[in-house]
């Protein structure tokens, strides 16, 4: 009887388990069948809602306070700038239709007269003055140093504004293509107050308007129906109905979302995912040299790196092409100086160092360290790429007699140590700026804001100052290239690679332009079905 009961019990349990499995399968199937598409598009260019994956969340929507690359990505689609950069890194009109230097210290802009901010406030010279004064009255803003050459901005009339400079400063125009040149509605700024950090309702004049932001989750913008810019055929822009920016910090998760079409645009991809993206017929992957550089900062005031021959030995001992090919999986360009191929001051013939262990040893000997030398290299933790690169450098430099001790720190701790000069060497790069001044002055001028190498060369200082003071591009190119030669001779920084700007999108994204700054502008982008 007991045996019979156990059999019945067993049957009952089997039925129960089967029912559970069937229920789960049913729910799953129902859920799968109901799959809602996150995108839509019409047969014309108009319409379409896209999702853009960013490596990190936006921190602020106020250009006055912004220091993050991701802020720029969003803000450049909400706010217009006085001037902008085209795909060739040339400065072209935006809210300003033209500009002229009346004198080396007087720059006059002619403004568009057909633009209104998203809250209806007209864009005019008074609005420009308001925005510039907002920066000049906030010395703690990161924008302040970017336009510190500006003494004042005054309206001439409603469509002309004059910038009075303290001294001739040709990089100013390039600064005005970015956050310093972003024009916000004075009405909205005053109304929103400190809440502008989180809410840009009505503040911009750009192709998209701020709608909603759930921090850490998504930031939504919608089409500005009154956007002033038209396409080549005179039709209204933008084409897209909305954009949702989604912060996705994990590279694998980013790629899986792109592969499945959950997002249509990815900020960038892990190097390990790039071959898969290239082979995937439903994705578009392109890359071009960017303006950024990456390498090793060397503290020129701390032994043993206070010896120029030791620094030159490191330059000779590094195999840059191997780093780009092996560590970066080809996602990068070999670097020889601060000016990348995307810069108009770049010289393709400039290659002072190549991988040469004999020359590295000779430089060590010249520096009185023929028996070898060692130093500690700080790297930011949390990045497998940084660790791999540091280990690669360690193994490459060993045969030359240079011992590298790797020390990991959080990124903020690394910045704290480098800015306090409490380090020997650090693996750190720069996101790059369109004007060569942005890649050189602060880094290599004596006392420059980013000159944590404590580097000082009066000749370099003179060249960098001269390059700022003239607007003749040929002269500036000559000055920057001469300065570059001297910097590489002194070797306070070992340039390893330039970054690349990537387009990683689904094939449904059309008219996407890869910009040298790496910014993603969606005014002319449309979604095809």
């Amino acid at each position, binding site marked *: 009887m007991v045996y019979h009961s156990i059999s019945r019990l*067993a049957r009952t349990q089997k039925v129960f388990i089967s029912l559970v499995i069937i229920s789960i399968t049913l729910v799953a199937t129902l859920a799968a069948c109901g799959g809602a598409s996150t995108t839509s598009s019409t047969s014309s260019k108009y319409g379409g809602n896209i999702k853009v994956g960013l490596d990190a*969340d936006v921190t602020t929507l106020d250009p006055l306070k912004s220091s993050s690359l991701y802020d720029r990505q969003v803000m450049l689609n909400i706010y217009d700038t006085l001037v902008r950069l085209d795909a060739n890194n040339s400065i072209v009109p935006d809210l300003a239709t033209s500009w002229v230097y009346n004198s080396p210290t007087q720059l006059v802009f002619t403004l568009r007269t057909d633009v209104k901010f998203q809250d209806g406030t007209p864009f005019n010279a008074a609005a420009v003055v308001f925005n510039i004064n907002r920066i000049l009255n906030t010395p703690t803003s990161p924008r302040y140093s970017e336009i510190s050459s500006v003494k004042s901005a005054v309206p001439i009339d409603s469509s002309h504004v004059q910038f009075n400079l303290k001294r001739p400063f040709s990089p100013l125009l390039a600064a005005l293509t970015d956050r310093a040149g972003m024009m916000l509605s004075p009405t909205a700024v005053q109304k929103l107050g400190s809440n502008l950090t989180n809410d840009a309702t009505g503040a911009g004049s750009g192709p998209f308007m701020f709608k909603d932001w759930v*921090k850490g989750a998504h930031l939504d913008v919608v089409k500005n129906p009154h956007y002033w810019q038209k396409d080549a055929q005179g039709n209204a822009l933008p084409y897209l109905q909305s954009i949702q920016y989604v912060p996705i910090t994990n590279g694998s*998760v980013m790629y899986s*979302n792109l592969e499945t079409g959950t997002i249509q645009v990815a900020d960038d991809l892990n190097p390990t995912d790039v071959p898969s993206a290239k082979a995937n017929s439903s994705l578009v992957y392109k890359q071009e040299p960017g303006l950024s550089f990456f390498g090793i900062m060397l503290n020129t005031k701390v032994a043993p790196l206070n010896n120029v021959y030791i620094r030159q030995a490191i330059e000779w001992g590094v195999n840059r092409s191997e780093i780009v090919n092996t560590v970066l999986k080809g996602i990068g360009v070999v670097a020889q100086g601060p000016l990348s191929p995307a810069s108009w001051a770049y010289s393709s013939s400039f290659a002072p160092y190549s991988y040469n262990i004999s020359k590295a040893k000779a430089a060590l000997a010249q520096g009185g360290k023929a028996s070898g030398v060692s130093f500690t290299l700080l790297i930011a933790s949390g990045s497998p790429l940084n660790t791999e690169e540091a280990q690669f450098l360690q193994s490459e430099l060993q045969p030359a007699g240079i011992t590298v001790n790797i020390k990991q720190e959080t*990124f*903020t701790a690394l910045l*704290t140590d480098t800015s306090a000069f409490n380090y020997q060497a650090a693996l750190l790069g720069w996101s790059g700026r369109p004007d060569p001044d942005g890649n050189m002055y602060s880094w290599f001028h004596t006392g420059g804001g980013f000159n944590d190498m404590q580097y000082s060369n009066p000749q370099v200082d003179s060249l960098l100052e001269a390059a700022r003071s003239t607007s003749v591009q040929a002269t500036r190119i000559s000055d920057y290239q001469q300065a570059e030669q001297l910097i590489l001779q002194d070797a306070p920084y070992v340039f390893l690679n330039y970054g690349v700007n990537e387009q990683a999108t689904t094939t449904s994204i059309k008219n996407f332009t890869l910009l040298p700054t790496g910014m993603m502008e969606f005014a002319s982008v449309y979604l095809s079905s």
Partner: protein
Amino acid sequence: MLRYILRRILFMLPVALLVSFLTFMMVHLIPGDPARILLGEYATPQTVAALDQQLGLNKPLPVQFGLWLWQAVQGNLGQSIQLGQPVLQAIQQRLPVTAELGVAALLYSLILAIPLGVYSATHRNSLGDWLANVFSLFSTAIPNFVLGLALIFFFAVDLRIFPPGGYVPFNQDALANIQDLILPMITLGTAVVAVNMRQIRASMIEALGQDYVQTARAKGLSERRVSYVHALKNAMLPVLTIIGLQVGSILAGAFIVETIFLWPGIGQLTIMSILSKDYPVVQGVVLLSAFSYMAANLLIDILYAAFDPRIRLDNS
């Protein structure tokens, strides 16, 4: 019973104070300055110092903790450095998301664990029992972030059955919400299934060997009734204890799962806050988590008494 409950509630306060203090010290031990993180990597030292002063971060640590504590007892958990909004508001916005995921994961674990545990107990040393044990070992051993990514790659990327991530509120689109829930629920709940299953199995084996079970069988009751009505009820008591402890592990697991599946819950908020050294948010989340954990265990203890009349929680 009431005296016991009041005593337990009072006991929560010193525990919460100790937890807050330890969290405060640990977060401040992490190198880095939240003001610098907020201002960006190229902020000038003067700008950073100005923001430090504005946020009160330049005050001595005991003073910072004291100020935070004084505000916390008044119900104000402070202002998030990164988000620029009250910590309580930030947590309230995200709590329903984490609660949905946590409850779903727990229910999923019980729905699987109970029948598997009962089957395993009544079919000891069978192939089914062996398979159930293998499953429990696998699900306990595999880290949840590995399982999550594997599920994404298989079900979302390869089979395209479920989305790889994202969250739509239930009231906005119920079907999309369920779609978004399946993979994170399985990821978070799988390790818990194993623990519950093994506990139920062990408890059932013990219960099935008791005299009252033999008596029930002798009275002619069906095996189903004997197992699920008599034995399981007593076997569930230790499981209740485990569930209480699992509130903490589910909350901890949610941190990673929400980050992988892009769920805007407490977990994702906390990860973001730790990385940006947003002290007020970290402390607020830890404090509320501690209270939730203690409240859940108090509830479990009360349910114990409800399940077993022999249990008296006070000394009467």
